[in-house]
């Protein structure tokens, strides 16, 4: 694999420390992950089909089997502070192949939700929230694209929130209901100053 230029600092640290360090078990963590993910990690018998199906496994220290084990053992801190948590591309290959009918991908999503509650979240995820709050789109339109659209006989802005910005207020209300924009702004400010 190419040199890990531009890797986040936390990931570099993780790559140096390969020991599975112990940590206090929290049985509630297992229950909460099962509630959010709506799947059954306690059924896992550690066969490793998930890790062997994972596109991220061969190129990193990310092991989905290890994360599922952490859920079962209630190793909350270990799971939520591990930077590998964010290397799942959510391809669902492990979910498709799990012989115990678990959806390991969804346990990862649940753990990411719980990490966010502790302000552990990559900044790029929060920038998407800011973009959608502002325009309704995660990837907004731009001038080059507007000109191209007109040439194609399309409207310069698509008939989404871009053409009907009056719909953005409703989106902002939904996001504000969960205080998501507020938290995104705060965490980005703390990270970037």
């Amino acid at each position, binding site marked *: 694999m*190419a040199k890990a*230029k*531009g*890797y*986040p600092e936390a990931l570099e640290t993780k790559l140096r420390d390969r020991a599975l360090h112990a940590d206090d078990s929290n049985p509630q963590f297992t229950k909460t992950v099962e509630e959010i993910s709506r799947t059954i990690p306690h059924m896992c018998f550690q066969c490793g089909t998930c890790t062997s199906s994972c*596109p*991220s496994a061969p190129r*990193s220290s990310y092991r989905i089997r290890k994360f599922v084990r952490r859920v079962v053992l209630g190793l909350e801190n270990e799971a939520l502070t591990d930077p590998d948590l*964010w*290397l*799942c*591309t*959510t*391809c*669902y*290959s492990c*979910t*498709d192949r799990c012989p115990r*009918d678990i*959806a390991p*991908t969804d346990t990862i*999503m*649940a753990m990411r*939700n719980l990490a*966010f509650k502790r302000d552990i*979240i*990559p900044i*790029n*995820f*929060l920038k*998407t*929230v800011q973009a*959608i709050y502002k325009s309704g*789109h*995660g*990837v907004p*339109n*731009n001038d080059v*694209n507007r000109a*191209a*659209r007109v*040439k*194609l006989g*399309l409207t310069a802005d*698509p*008939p*989404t*929130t*871009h*053409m*009907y910005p*009056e*719909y*953005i207020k*409703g989106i902002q*209300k*939904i996001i504000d*209901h*969960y205080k*998501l924009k507020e938290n995104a702004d705060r965490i980005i400010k703390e990270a970037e100053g």
Partner: protein
Amino acid sequence: MDAKHTYAFYLGCIAPNRYPGVEAAAIKTSKKLGIDLVPLKGASCCPAPGAFGSIDLNVFYAMAARNLVLAEQMKTDIALVCNGCYKSIWEVNHKLKHNDDLRDGVNEVLKEVDMEYKGTINVYHLAELLYDPMIAGVEKIRESVTNPLTGTRIAVHYGCHLIKPKKDREFAHQEMLNTEGPTWMEEMVAALGAEPVEYRYKMLCCGAGGGVRGYDIVHSLDITNEKLLNLKDVGIDALTDICPFCQLQFDRGQIEIQEKFGAVYNLPVLHYSELLGLAQGMSPQELALDLHGISCEPFLQKVL
């Protein structure tokens, strides 16, 4: 031909805002196959399943539900052209229809914006409508071709979020429930006159999803690079996809791979709607193929 099947066209972000040719082609080519795509006014980002789903699934459900309600208000089923959007819009619709607790939670929030999710519409990927003989079908696609892509070798990237996880999916056709070695897209490629080409590890992810492209671009591109290496081995003229985010990863990603890894592929990457457009006689200009990061010229020279 008169369009008999009408759908609210859910656009998402990357198709209308980065590859508008996909939007233009989807509308024009579908019309020729009896599918009418009408605007879904005021729709937003699906929202991005990797980013929003990772942060807070409840916001993810509510935001997707808002888009679904817009189509419910039109009393029209949704058609879309992006696997990522399918993951959000189809899956949230499915979850809310089958889980009363989730639906109640979402409706409590939607009440604040005078909306109510009722669960009255269905969501389809345009590719599944094109493949479905009850709607369009491979034969009808073949009959619509005026400029066959004869003499070209084309490989398919299915992407992940349309067909996986299969245990949740409810396709009309069994072929679409094969997630290990599907060939229904290859059938649609052959219908255009091109030769569909198999390659090693076809079902590997593009590498972009789950927020990984933004979190660790090198890791993300390393997955893409593996796919490109396997594609290079079989010698193809173009790669086709049914997801603008996968398309972005393979198309703009090739430029980033050149910068970071020094590997050069120059492989044209086209959404199936763009490919269908060319086969139905649309010009490269009508498809805005000049907006692609990797030039489609070598491929176009073979088919025009």
